[in-house]
């Protein structure tokens, strides 16, 4: 079984609001001192794929990214986690790329590298939180889709997954080829690569492709995209917190109880 995991490199989403900056002209976040990381749920998706491989060693896990040269670091991390192959489609664009265009790029790449039995995505990117690329890539590849899955296993002619829907948890099955979007759970907390594997990952090849080779016009990513982001801004917050003072934690707790009662909502 070949599993392709689509991963994106993003500015660390855990940067606290106090350090978060944007460039309103370019309409994107400024990296500043923050690290570039694999988008949170994409890394969970890698973990889900690698667990299938742990059980069924013939599984091939391919990490695929569409991004600039720096995104090779994301692929190296995936290889260090012991993905088998890495593919990058090159772009020098930063900032928002239209999800419909990205889906076309990913779908074309997957077809070009010989298709996949399973394509995994994070439930949403940890930058724009759009939650569109997985759905639209599945559509382009005409695959059934399971969203918000936390784990999967290979079964006869298909896969079985656990997912969380509006009505709670269920176990679902689908025939391959199939696409899944992955959400977080204790079972898919990403593994930490071994030092040895990190070193080896640096010697593994990364296949690079261009949009030209895929026959894709880069204009679909912005100028000719169906949706335009017109404005990006940081909303103002005016919040005054009252910190309860006291000599001891117990004193603070007693005063807090009084203050909570004074809110008159209990």
């Amino acid at each position, binding site marked *: 079984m070949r599993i392709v995991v689509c991963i994106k490199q993003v500015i660390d989403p855990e940067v606290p609001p106090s350090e978060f900056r944007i460039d309103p002209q370019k309409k994107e976040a400024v990296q500043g001192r923050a690290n570039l990381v694999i988008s949170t749920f994409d890394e969970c998706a890698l973990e889900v794929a690698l667990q299938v491989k742990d059980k069924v060693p013939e599984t091939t896990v391919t990490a695929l990214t569409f991004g600039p040269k720096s995104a090779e670091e994301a692929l190296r991390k995936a290889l260090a986690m012991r993905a088998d192959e890495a593919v990058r489609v090159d772009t020098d664009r930063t900032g928002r790329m239209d999800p419909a265009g990205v889906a076309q790029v990913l779908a074309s790449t997957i077809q070009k590298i010989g298709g996949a039995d399973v394509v995994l995505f994070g439930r949403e990117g940890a930058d724009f939180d759009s939650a569109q690329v997985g759905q639209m890539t599945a559509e382009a590849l005409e695959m059934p889709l399971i969203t918000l899955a936390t784990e999967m296993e290979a079964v006869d002619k298909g896969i079985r997954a656990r997912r969380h829907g509006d009505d709670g948890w269920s176990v679902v099955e689908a025939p391959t080829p199939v696409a899944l979007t992955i959400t977080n759970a204790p079972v898919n907390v990403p593994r930490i690569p071994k030092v040895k594997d990190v070193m080896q990952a640096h010697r593994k090849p990364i296949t690079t492709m261009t949009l030209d080779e895929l026959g894709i016009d880069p204009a679909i990513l912005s100028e000719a995209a*169906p949706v335009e982001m017109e404005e990006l801004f940081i909303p103002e917050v005016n919040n005054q917190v009252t910190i309860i003072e006291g000599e001891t934690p117990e004193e603070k707790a007693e005063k807090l109880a009084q203050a909570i009662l004074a809110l008159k909502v209990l």
Partner: protein
Amino acid sequence: MPNVVALVFAPAGQLPASAFELLGAGSRIAAAENVPLVAALVGSSLNDLPKQLLAHGAVEVYTVEDGLLETFQPDLYLLAAEQAVQAAQPQTVLLLHDGVGAELGPRLGARLKGGVVTDVIEIVTEGGVRYRRPVYGGKAMATYAVRRSPAVVTIRVRSQEPAPEQGNAEGPIHPVAVTLDPQAAKVKVVERIEEEEQEGVKLEDARVIVSGGRGLGKAENFQALKELADVLGAGMAASRAAVDAGWVPYAMQVGQTGKMVAPDLYIAVGISGASQHLAGITGSKHVVAINKDSEAPIFKRAELGVVDDYSKVLPVLTQKLKELLGK
């Protein structure tokens, strides 16, 4: 004639609780664009549901009703939705950004070759309709314009005023003939798992919520939180870090990728207040934080705060509130 189409899913004859919010959003877009608001209703056992949509501002309703739509099945729902929406001649299609809408909206948008905007919380109508939504985990906001019709837009649950009931429930109801092939259903539910939900209060409806984060240190320490919850008759929630650690079930996760809650009182214990967590509590009236770090971002959202070790604060707080409330 192009329409604003509110696409509503009703498996087993149940309208989602936020269906009228969708019509509320739809009526504002329809007024701004000067086009009619219609509804597309997809599900089973629809009975008087089309009339309810008419009574809340839709001027026409297009229905796809089929026994195969008794429970949500993505492949069949997508086929049915596409047909219903096409019949309704969309200029704009609105769906709720719940699990089903978030899954089907982008696929539908791709099928209709339109422009998709997800998880919208604000509709801007001056000088043309624009859609506003949080990005970067709620640390920024973005405004989007759709350049290719139809716009397919998913609307965050509880972000919009619901459409009021208008009394007059007259209007055409158009059943759309769709032949659904059971073979088209690729994704099959083989087992439903009973939610490990906390007994008692449902988080989405809770008036008071106590919530724990990584700062609690281990699963057993949620017991102290439970004691406070019991005194307050509160629902219990958690941050993603506590869920990923395996201390509490995902059903308790509050935030952008968990539940959206709107209690009168939200008590955050050992939670740093990451923007993605705060995204889930925007509707809370009063936020109280207990955190040992005075620089924690939660204090930028909280109204009342205690800076200290929660394990020393919580038992006394619980005891004192118990006394004050006469329990």
